[in-house]
């Protein structure tokens, strides 16, 4: 599953939420809101609230052209829509009706096919409506007369005289619907209008920058300066105005605007689209672009955003700015405006401001060219918002950091060529000409750099109203017109030169030799437009969308593999320590985790949003439907891509490849030790009911990661720049140091460094304990890598410590994992033995650090196991607990504050402490107690140990640490092989047959002990509290031992497999056992069966143990409550198997080789001590 997700994850990252609209799956069934926004080019804030069939009547005074004349006006039947702050009307049945998908909608959405403001109608911001009156009408129940603020800014001065010269814009809309529907609509409209009153001032300001206001101003008021209509006003507009018939166009537009409203109050009638096709007049071009692209509505939403952004970031530097600066002098350099400081300054400001508001895009070459073109016709602010509309809606992804939109549209273009011009396509393939090397700049710079400017602007005129399909239509037309010549061109060079010369002659006659003067007058450009929009009229917004969806995966995968390749190659020297395969896997894991987390977060947020909207917004029911849809797809609102991994993501990341990083306590509220994260937590739980559980569990389908102090240390260590987040580089560098060198000294140093908080080369008492805890934490699911099966370690240990020597050797059947616990125990002892005395100064710090870190202990049981391991014989005596109690008693009065605190918990401490103390013969008390104290009776051990005496602070240095590690073969192997090998970078955990939950249940080292305890409890209810418990524990341990002995040679893999299958049986988890991986022989099968009961027993016991542990620690350990909950929840996981388990448990233990214990692998460590005793009882 990780592979699968990593496959798409990067791709998903590339899909900026806003930009990706046309790429996401949800586009197949787009949300109604997004269709609505697209059709009317409205900002994302708008949603279709009400809609109703209506007839628009434009009174004769306003009529230039249009529909049929009927009782003195023009009538259009269509739909009237109301959003939060817009009233829209369109004759083209809207593509966002509930039933409409893009494809079905395209059949009747007119010219733009749902991709823009098509048909006849209007898009009035509510604040542009001055008055709505309800008329009495016989035909319809409701008729509204709408009066707009058309000409608002010029009226500002002298309202009164103006009215004489021109009638106000007044249209009638007759609603056709049930009375209820009409009334609902009108209520909504009323509300909206009321809310919009406050925005009238803003509207005035926005329209004030529109040239139309100036144009339509009566002559006597023209003295005021005209609004900025681009650099063209200063440096002339490109092209010959006479040839362009600019004046004539201007007159036509002036007339149209006068009759149909200007800028935001403009009513679209057929003439509007015709006027656009013939080319916009220079001074109005910017404004119409703004209007048709919808960027004027963005500007209306936040008119000062441009100025504010510039002010806010003034003087700041960024990479984008550097890049912009490089290109300023080379953007349309042939246009005089961009040879001047004025023009360059405008370009700089617009690009810079945009790079700030959209840091994901920043700056992309080609944007400079496009913006430069815009600036010829519009003001800086207008260009700024239009750029925004371009990047977000019109050409999404074109300028993004991966340019996926560009690449995708190239693919789409290629498939269109293949479909429409198969012969040419075949020729291209045969002569190995890659089309996109030619066409890419067309799209990327919207033809601005490819054609002479005058023609490029004509393309843009249509592009802004009809959308990106225009780029394709024009591109196809270019190829078709030049088809024959292109068929002669046999390589890239020839291909390019054919097109180059074509572009250079666009103004020439298309039919120079024609007899017909009219035909002769047709220019090549006109021919191009005709071919584009007539011959390729089948290219629609929806056909483009479909092709985009079809090619999306290929393109994104290409980008992804390129990005991956590049990222891995650029990881620097550290990465050389890892293999390519490892790096690739790391990359996938890294981004996989990030992606999945984003997805979960997204779904969560959508869910939130939906519920919020449900409760507070008066929407149509189907609005919510749209939302539901997007939630299922999980893609619409995809958060901005990130390449940073926070601590939780880091945990998840590790849990995907290291067994020790998986929580022992799944399904518990996570992060209790991390208060800052608590909030989210609850949310996830609260809504997990409604969607796919795997997605909505806070950790997705994967195992819940552990949260151990060691993880935090690792995170901090890797987070070299202390940004509380890791980059891929950090992760690779971090792992390279552990896994890359395979150098034992390096790993040892690393481990030491990890615990050397102040980097002074010393690790104090707490540090030593933390180290041993970390060792236990890392080994609690078993050791990996190549470990010597010999017992030499033990003998070595024995030599070092005479007391233990004989004992350990007496237990030949010890597993490596068991022995490792012994090694850790010995490690602690030796550390204290060889530690250097500290300066008094450090003492206090120690206290501090000590109490702090105790909170993070989750696994108090492990060290206990360690001790037992070290000297199993010590357990033979069941009544050690008494001495334990004695110790405690002694401690409580005398101990340090910490000790005192804990001493009151003594009753609960008993079980664990039993073994602890049993091993601590008076002579060796220092060492053993050191390890014990962690988990249980810290106080007592502190008391008992000189080494632990806070009044004798001490520390070890790296050389000491190294020596101690190397003194123990097993530890040495741990650092040499096991620890590095525990990161399963490539294969991950699933392939190592590790099912996290099951392993959790069985392998926790405290488990064995816990089992013992639980059993003890079961039995001990009647008997005395202490000694029976011990005996029972021993019994359990024995069973585990036996099992272990059987499977030691099979290795951990088999154990894991058995565990996994057992877990399957229990939980009916869907994960299918991998048949191929069944290594098991018959014995295993048996074991398998036995395992069930045993494991449940174990878990049950664990619960008991957990409870005990918790009580033990009492107030002293902040982490305890969590721990307890963990355990009980574990139990839940087992689903009541516990009950039967406790009974069966003993049986299994006693009689069969019960695979149980062995599965636990490491856990047996603890059980082992008991094994001895058991041996006596059962075997004997």
């Amino acid at each position, binding site marked *: 599953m990780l592979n699968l997700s990593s496959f798409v994850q990067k791709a998903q990252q590339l899909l900026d939420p806003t930009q990706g609209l046309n790429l996401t799956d949800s586009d197949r069934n787009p949300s109604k809101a997004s269709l609505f926004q697209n059709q009317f080019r409205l900002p994302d804030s708008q949603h279709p609230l009400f809609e109703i069939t209506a007839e628009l009547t434009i009174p004769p005074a306003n009529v230039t052209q249009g529909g049929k004349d009927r009782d003195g006006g023009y009538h259009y039947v269509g739909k009237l829509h109301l959003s939060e702050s817009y009233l829209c009307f369109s004759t083209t049945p809207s593509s966002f009706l509930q039933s409409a998908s893009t494809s079905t909608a395209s059949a009747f959405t007119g010219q733009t096919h749902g991709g823009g403001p098509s048909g006849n109608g209007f898009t009035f911001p509510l604040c542009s409506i001055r008055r709505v009156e309800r008329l009495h009408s016989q035909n319809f129940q409701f008729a509204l007369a709408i009066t707009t603020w058309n000409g608002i800014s010029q009226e500002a001065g002298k309202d009164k005289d103006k009215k004489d010269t021109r009638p106000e814009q007044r249209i009638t809309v007759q609603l056709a619907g049930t009375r209820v529907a009409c009334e609902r609509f009108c209520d909504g409209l009323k509300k909206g209008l009321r809310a919009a009153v406050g925005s009238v001032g803003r509207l005035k300001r926005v329209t004030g920058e529109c040239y139309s206001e100036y144009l339509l101003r009566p002559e006597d008021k023209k003295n005021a300066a005209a609004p900025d209509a681009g650099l063209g006003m200063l440096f002339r507009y490109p092209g010959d105005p006479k040839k362009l018939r600019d004046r004539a166009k201007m007159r036509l537009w002036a007339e149209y605007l006068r009759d149909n409203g200007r800028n935001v109050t403009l009513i679209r009638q057929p003439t509007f689209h015709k006027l656009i096709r013939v080319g916009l007049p220079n001074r109005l071009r910017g404004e119409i672009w703004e209007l048709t692209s919808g960027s004027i509505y963005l500007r209306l939403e936040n008119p000062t955003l441009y100025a504010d952004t510039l002010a806010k970031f003034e003087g700041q530097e960024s990479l984008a700015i550097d*890049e912009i600066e*490089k*290109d300023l*002098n*080379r*953007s349309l*350099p042939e246009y005089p405006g961009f040879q001047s400081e004025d023009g360059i300054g405008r370009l700089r400001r617009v690009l810079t401001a945009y790079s700030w508001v959209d840091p994901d895009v920043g700056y*992309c*070459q*080609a944007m*400079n*060219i496009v913006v430069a073109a815009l600036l010829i016709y519009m003001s800086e602010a207008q260009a700024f918002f239009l750029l925004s509309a371009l990047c977000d809606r019109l050409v999404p992804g074109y300028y*993004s*950091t*991966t*340019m996926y939109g*560009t*690449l995708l549209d190239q693919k789409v273009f290629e498939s269109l060529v293949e479909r429409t011009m198969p012969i040419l396509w075949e020729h291209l393939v*045969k*002569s*190995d000409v*890659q089309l*996109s*090397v030619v066409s*890419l*700049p067309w799209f*990327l*710079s919207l033809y601005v*750099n490819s054609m002479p400017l005058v023609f490029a602007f004509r393309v843009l005129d249509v592009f802004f109203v009809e959308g990106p399909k225009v780029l394709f239509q024009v591109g196809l037309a270019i190829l078709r017109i030049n088809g024959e010549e292109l068929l*002669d*061109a*046999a*390589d*890239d*060079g*020839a291909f*390019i*030169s054919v097109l180059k010369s074509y572009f250079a002659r666009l103004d020439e006659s298309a039919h120079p030799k024609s007899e017909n003067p009219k035909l002769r007058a047709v220019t090549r450009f006109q021919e191009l437009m005709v071919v584009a929009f007539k011959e390729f009229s089948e290219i629609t917004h929806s056909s483009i969308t479909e092709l985009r969806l079809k090619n999306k995966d290929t393109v994104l995968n*290409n*980008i992804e593999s*390129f*990005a991956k*390749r*590049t990222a891995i*190659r*650029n990881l620097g020297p550290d990465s050389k320590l890892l293999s390519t395969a490892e790096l690739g896997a790391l990359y996938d894991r890294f981004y996989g985790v990030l992606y999945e987390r984003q997805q979960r977060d997204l779904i969560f947020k959508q869910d939130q949003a939906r519920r919020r909207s449900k409760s507070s917004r008066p929407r149509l029911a189907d609005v919510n439907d749209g939302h539901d849809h997007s939630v299922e797809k999980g893609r619409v609102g995809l958060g901005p891509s990130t390449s940073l991994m926070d601590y939780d993501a880091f945990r998840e990341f590790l849990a995907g490849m290291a067994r020790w990083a998986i929580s022992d306590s799944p399904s518990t509220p996570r992060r209790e030790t991390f208060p800052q994260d608590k909030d989210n937590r609850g949310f996830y739980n609260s809504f997990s009911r409604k969607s796919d559980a795997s997605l909505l569990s806070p950790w997705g389908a994967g195992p819940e990661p552990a949260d151990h102090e060691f993880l935090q240390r690792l995170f901090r260590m890797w987070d070299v720049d202390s940004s509380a987040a890791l980059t891929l580089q950090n992760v690779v560098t971090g792992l390279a140091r552990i896994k890359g060198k395979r150098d034992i000294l390096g790993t040892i140093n690393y481990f030491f460094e990890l615990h050397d908080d102040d980097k002074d080369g010393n690790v104090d008492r707490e540090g030593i304990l933390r180290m041993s805890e970390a060792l236990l934490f890392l080994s609690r699911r078993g050791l990996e890598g190549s470990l010597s099966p010999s017992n030499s370690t033990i003998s070595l240990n024995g030599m070092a410590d005479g007391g233990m020597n004989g004992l350990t050797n007496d237990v030949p059947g010890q597993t490596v994992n068991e022995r490792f616990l012994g090694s850790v125990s010995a490690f602690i002892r030796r550390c204290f033995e060889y530690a250097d005395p500290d300066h008094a100064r450090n003492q206090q710090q120690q206290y501090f650090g000590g109490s702090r870190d105790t909170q993070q202990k989750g696994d108090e049981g492990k060290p206990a196991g360690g001790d037992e391991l070290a000297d199993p014989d010590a357990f033979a005596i069941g009544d050690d607990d008494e001495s334990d109690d004695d110790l405690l008693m002694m401690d409580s009065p005398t101990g340090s504050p910490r000790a005192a605190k804990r001493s009151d918990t003594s009753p609960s401490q008993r079980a664990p402490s039993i073994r602890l103390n049993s091993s601590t013969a008076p002579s060796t008390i220092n060492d053993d107690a050191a390890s014990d104290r962690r988990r249980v009776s810290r106080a007592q051990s502190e008391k008992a140990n000189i080494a632990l005496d806070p009044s004798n602070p001490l520390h070890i240095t790296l050389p000491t640490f190294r020596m101690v590690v190397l003194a123990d073969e097993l530890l040495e192997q741990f650092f040499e092989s096991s620890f590095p090998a525990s990161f399963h970078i490539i294969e991950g955990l699933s392939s190592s047959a590790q099912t996290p939950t099951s392993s959790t249940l069985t392998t926790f080292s405290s488990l064995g002990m816990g089992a013992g305890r639980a059993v003890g409890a079961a039995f001990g209810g009647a008997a005395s509290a202490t000694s029976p418990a011990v005996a029972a524990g021993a019994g359990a341990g024995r069973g585990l031992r036996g099992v272990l002995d059987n499977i030691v040679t099979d290795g951990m893999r088999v154990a894991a497999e058995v565990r996994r299958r057992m877990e399957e049986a229990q939980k009916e988890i869907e994960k299918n056992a991998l048949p191929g991986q069944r290594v098991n022989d018959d014995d295993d099968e048996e074991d398998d069966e036995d395992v069930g009961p045993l494991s449940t027993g174990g878990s049950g016991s664990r619960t008991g143990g957990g409870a005990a542990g918790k009580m033990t620690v009492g107030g002293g350990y902040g982490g305890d409550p969590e721990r307890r909950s963990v355990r009980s929840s574990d139990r839940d996981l087992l689903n009541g198997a516990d009950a039967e388990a406790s009974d069966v448990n003993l049986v299994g233990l006693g009689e069969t080789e019960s695979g149980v214990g062995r599965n636990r692998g490491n856990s047996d460590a603890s059980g082992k001590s008991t094994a001895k005793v058991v041996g006596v009882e059962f075997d004997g």
Partner: protein
Amino acid sequence: MADSANAPKPSSSVKLVLLGEAAVGKSSLVLRFVNNDFQENKEPTIGAAFLTQKCNLPTRTIKFEIWDTAGQERFASLAPMYYRNAQAALVVYDLTKPTSLVKAKHWVAELQRQASPGIVIALVGNKLDLTNDGAGSGAAESGDDSGDARKITTEEAKTYAEEEGLLFFETSAKTGYNVTEVFTAIANAIPETSLKSARGPGASHAAGRTEEQRVNLNGPRDPNAKEGCAC
């Protein structure tokens, strides 16, 4: 290419791609090579620019089809489109900007792994005019004299180039120093065999033949010896 085989000097076209960090002077190198010109403000390359130039060698004529790519980082994902089938690559860095050599190394690695096997790669440190030895021989090791903008020693880059088996040059597109030498060296380094099979049959013939013949008529031009390839 059967027809060119008859000519006294065989002529063949070579696809060459320029790669490197933004603003290291890729386009300027090409401009110098193709037009023997230098512009302070060149339009940024969108996607890639395509130019051709011939290079006369004693035994053959090479027509370079030069793909000059955009240097901005995000255009990198387009690069495979351009270096596809390339027989030669110019990986350019700015010897006053250490990061550009890093980027150049990335490109070299990319090419070695992804481009046609046997691609001839030249590592070019541009902007030699900004260093003290700008006019002199590129081999001179720069000291820490004031006014020397050089940040990457010749030795460092050269060592790297030798390790990777690259041609290595330090150039100045501004002064023209060493520019044509780069292209000549590449032309020389292209194995004959790869020339024959370089492009599909028929490729470049229609467009290239007349020019090639013209070039052949001109023969080896001594006056151009210094500039080797400029024509």
